[in-house]
Every structure is written in C-alpha cells, then in structure tokens.
C-alpha cells in the first residue's frame, strides 16, 4: 500500500496530545479519547467505536429552543444553544458555530448576496446564499492581475450595500512613491464615502464581537473535554470562482468561451486558498481537519447523468486545482474533509487519487457499497444517514438507517458517522437516537 503522509500523522498525534491546561484529569482523558477516536478513523484504523462528529449548524438553535434569528444576534442564546447541545448529546467532535452571531456582521455589510432571518427570511430559517454574476465575463484579467484589488474595489462594492464607495478609491498598488497617492482616497471623503467608513467601523466592531464569541464558546467546550471537529475551511478553486464570483451560468459558459482564463484563475485561487486555510488552521491551534464543502462538480444522478458538469469537465476544470490545493494542505499536515454535495458515485474513481489516511470524504448521495469498495483502503468515509429521515422520520427509522450505514461503511474502520447534510429541521429525538445508537451499536469488538 502507498505510504500515508508523515506530516498528517504527526499533526494528528499532536492534536491527540494538546498542550491545553485542562481543569482535571477526567476532562483531559475524555478529550483525548475523542480526538484519538477521530484520528484513528482518519488513519483508516479501527477506533474503539465509530466516531460522531455531527454537522450541526442551526440544529443547535433547534435543540435549545431558540430561533435561527436569536442565535445570529444574541451572544448569550447563541452560546447557551451550543454548550447545551454538546454537553447533552456528547459527540466526539462538535461543529464550531461559524454562522452564529453573524447577524450584526451581515447587517454592517448590508449584504446583497445573503438572505438571513429578518432580512428576507422568517426568524426560524437558516440563511441562504444569493448567487449572482459578481465578477463579469470580461473581468478575468483584472482578477488575475491583482486579486486583492479586485475583491476590494469590484467584488465588495457589488455584494455590500454599505461599502459601495470602496469602488471609488484608487488601487492600493498606486502607493509606489510618496508623491503618487495624495489624492487616492478622495472617494472616501465624499458624503457616500464617509458613510462607507462608518459602515466599516460597524463592520469591524461586529467582526470583533463575532470572533470573541467563537473563541469563548469553543474554549469553554474544550475545557469540558469536547474538541471542535475542524479548525479551518476552504473551497475548491472552481467553486470560489463559480459560487462567489461568476455564478453558475457564468462559469458554465466560461468552460466553452474562455477555458484558459478560467483555468488560470483557478490556479491563482489555489495559492490564495492555501494561504488562507493554513493561516486559519494555525490560528486555531493547528487543528488538523479542514472543512471543504464542494458544490459545482457534482453529478445529479447515481449513473452520472444530468450533472453540473460532465466527467470530462470534472477532470479538466474541477478536480486538478482542488487536488492541488488538497496536496498542499496534506503536505502541511492537514486533513481535507470534503463535503461532497450531490451524487459523487460517478466521480469515485477520480477522487480516490489521494495518499491513504489523509482525507475525510463526507457524502450526501452515494452508493455506499461502491464507495467503501473504491475508497476503503484510502479515505475515511463520513456520512451518510439520509437527512430526510432525520427531519421527517422517527427514532426507529433513524436507528435502522444508522445500522445500514454502520454495517457497510463501518466495516474494518475508516468511518465517521454523520447525517448527509446539516438542517435546522432535524428532530432532537432523532439526533439523540443517532448518537445513542452509534455509541451502542458502533463499538468495534
């Protein structure tokens, strides 16, 4: 068998033995048991039992009886919901609530690309992304020439109502001599510009409050023996371009009309994402697991028909730069945790090309037998308890579904149980059933 990555092994080992001043021996033991369980699954070994690292997001609010709106704005309720859910249900890894307390941030942005409770959505519904062509077809050169400038002066003014005036400043690269940029800030001196500066002030305060909230709640749970299941996130370069900048239609047309520029932009984004992802992970104690939600590379059906791209386009446009980014992360000791939205059964033979014991692949729709067969000796599989059973079914249905997953995917180790996606509509009794059943039935003997 191919060799795994020493760096990943070392980083997982460090995660299992953290230099954290735990309040007691018991807490330390519980924390280390949990990280060890997850690390063993990633390294394709058999842990003592199948690890639980649920993708919870707004389920925290549902469980604690708050609305989505409340946990996006009220730090006490936000923290209470997370702490209560985690301490009650006791998973092995918990999800950092990265969308909680973002209400004030989104408000300060006057976000045009997000709907959230109170702003286009009812109080009890999680936020939704509004896709658009925020980078035009003829702006690849501008993006490639200076991505930071593009994001600052083109992208932000388009997705933020309050920061429109950023479009008026001159490029920051114009500060090439002390006498060249005396007038470069004139746009921010106008009444509209001054309003944007006020918005930037509000944004910074909201951002400060958000970070403090996350640090506080995660720190509290760590001190109770619960590790978060990731410390950083990233995206496939094609998705950054397609979701955030060009939009679905835009990027699909680019595959035909300007494939070379599209590929150049994806290459450029590899470096940007690698730097962002690694620095975030380092800031979070070098947490080994990187969350990577995937969007635009999927097929629609089991046989690969009707998808967002053909297998050929997947191999040409999507996979190479994603694989390159994953390679950089793995070489730095990090574990890409792909969330493969859609049906990836027809992509299995392509995505199996990674060093063994370095990745987690979380599937939404997949032939679990084929997935285990193709990836079993290579990638830790995460999933795949159907979300509709969690939201519509009974605890009985949940146990039956979990048993099926454990019997197939859990065989021999290298498996983490989870639902196929997050939802604020999961019934608390169903989540409890999934956790209790796994702790009982998922024990390796």
């Amino acid at each position, binding site marked *: 068998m191919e060799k795994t990555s020493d760096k990943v092994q070392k980083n997982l080992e460090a995660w299992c033995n953290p230099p954290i001043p735990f309040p007691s021996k018991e807490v330390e033991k519980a924390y280390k048991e949990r990280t060890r369980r997850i690390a063993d699954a990633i390294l394709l070994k058999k842990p003592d039992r199948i690890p639980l690292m649920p993708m919870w997001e707004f389920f925290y609010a549902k469980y604690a009886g708050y609305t989505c709106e409340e946990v996006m704005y009220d730090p006490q309720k936000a923290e209470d919901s997370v702490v209560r859910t985690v301490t009650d249900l006791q998973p092995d890894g918990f999800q950092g609530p990265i969308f909680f307390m973002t209400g004030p941030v989104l408000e300060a942005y006057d976000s045009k690309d997000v709907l959230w409770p109170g702003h286009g959505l009812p109080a009890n519904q999680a936020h939704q992304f509004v896709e658009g062509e925020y980078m035009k077809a003829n702006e690849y050169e501008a993006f490639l020439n200076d991505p930071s400038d593009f994001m600052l002066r083109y992208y932000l003014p388009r997705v933020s109502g309050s920061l429109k005036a950023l479009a008026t400043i001159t490029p920051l690269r114009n500060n090439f001599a002390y006498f060249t940029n005396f007038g470069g800030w004139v746009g921010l001196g106008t009444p509209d510009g001054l309003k944007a500066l006020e918005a930037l002030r509000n944004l910074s305060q909201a951002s400060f409050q958000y970070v403090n909230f996350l640090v506080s709640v995660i720190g509290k749970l760590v001190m109770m023996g619960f590790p978060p299941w990731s410390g950083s996130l990233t995206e496939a370069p094609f998705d950054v371009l397609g979701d955030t900048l060009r939009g679905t239609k835009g990027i699909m047309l680019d595959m035909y009309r300007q494939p070379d520029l599209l590929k150049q932009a994806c290459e450029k984004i590899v470096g940007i994402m690698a730097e962002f992802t690694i620095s975030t992970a380092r800031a979070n104690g070098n947490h080994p697991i990187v969350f990577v939600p995937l969007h635009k590379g999927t097929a629609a059906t089991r046989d690969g028909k009707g998808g967002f791209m*053909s297998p050929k386009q997947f191999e040409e446009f999507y996979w190479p730069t994603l694989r390159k980014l994953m390679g950089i992360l793995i070489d730095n000791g990090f574990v890409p945790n792909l969330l493969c939205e859609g049906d990836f059964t027809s992509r299995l033979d392509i995505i199996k090309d990674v060093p063994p014991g370095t990745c987690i692949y979380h599937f939404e729709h997949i032939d679990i037998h084929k997935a285990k067969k193709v990836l079993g000796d290579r990638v830790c599989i995460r999933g795949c308890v159907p979300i509709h059973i969690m939201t519509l079914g009974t605890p009985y249905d949940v146990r039956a579904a979990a048993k099926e997953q454990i019997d197939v995917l859990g065989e021999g180790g290298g498996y983490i149980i989870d639902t196929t996606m997050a939802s604020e509509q999961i019934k608390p009794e169903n989540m409890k059933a999934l956790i209790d059943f796994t702790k009982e039935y998922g024990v390796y003997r």
Partner: protein
Amino acid sequence: MQKNLVYVLSELKEKEVLEMVKSRLEAGEDPLRILDDAKQAMKIVGKRFEEGTYFIPDLIYSGEILRAVSEMVRPKMTKQAASKRLGGVIIGTVKGDIHDIGKNIVTFMLDLNGFEVYDLGIDVPVETFVEKIRETKAPVVGLSGFLTIAFDSMKETIDAIEKAGLRDKVKIIIGGGNMNEDIKKYTRADAYGVDAMAAVSFANKVMASTTKSA
C-alpha cells in the same frame, strides 16, 4: 447547408453557428427556415442530455447560442412561426426556498420538449400555485426545492391544492436533488424526480393519458 446549421448547433460550435446564420440571412433566406433548423438542433441537444452524453453546462451553452441566433433572426421576420404546444406545466420553487438552478433547467427542458411552461419563480407562496392552476388549467404541476424546509412547503402546497378542490385536476411532481420515495409519500405528490428528465417524461405521460381520456 441547412443540415450544417443543425450539426454545428447540436455540436455547440458557437462561432460557426453565428457565421452560418449571418450568411444565410445575407443570402436572403426565409428566417423561419433558419429557426426550424435551430429547433431541430435543440431537439438533438435535449436528446443527448436525456441519454447522458450532454450535461447541464451543455444545455446552458446551447440556450445561449440559441438566444443569439433568435436575436439575429427575429428582426428579419415578417410572420410569426406557428407554435404548437403540447400542454401546460406550472413550475416553481416552493415557499422558503430560493434555489433556482434545477428549476430553470427543468423549465428549459420542458420548453424544449414543446410544453407551455408557466414558471412562477422562487419562494412561491402556496396561493400562487393554486391561482395559477385555476387560471391556466394546466394539468401538470412541478414543485421544486432543495432545502429540507421544502419538504414541508411542498406538503403545504399540495394540501392547499387539495383544499381548493383542484387535486384531481392536476398531476404533481416534486423535484430536487434530495427527493425520494419517502418524501413523495410525505408530500402526497404523484411522482418525484432528481433530474430534469424525470419532469419531462412525467409531463409526457400525463399529457398522453389526458388526450386519451379526452
């Protein structure tokens, strides 16, 4: 020559398509014949999508080329092409959900297959579906959705159609990447689909049975 346009459009050769249309218009050809060729090519595109050799990007691209062709041809047209439509299909993304990629693809495929499509957009209130059924008497309704919240919105929409006394007048298909038999039962729809072709074959089946019984 006419065969050529069908070929290059079905092969998605945008530049060649536009050149060919331009020269045929300059040669004074009847614009309707050009549109007929385009229609024939689009049928091939749709068929390839059904067979699984074309994918969503191919559909989107063919739609863009077709749009450019009609923009060139329309100003030269003196009479409208008579369009024969198969029957009405009402479609929309249900309340609380703003996902539109899948719905737009289904709309495109239904249109390509000759249906009269009434696309109600996204986040469509329950009453809007009911009103549209009353207004158009379309025999097929497609409810699209991606989020888990859509399961309940679909159920509510179908309940409302039933309450309005219209349930036996329409056949309803729910569609989206997460649909399955369980959700079909939960919402009490007539069918479910995870790709665009499911909606087309469902609509075809409904139309065939309504013509038979009529």
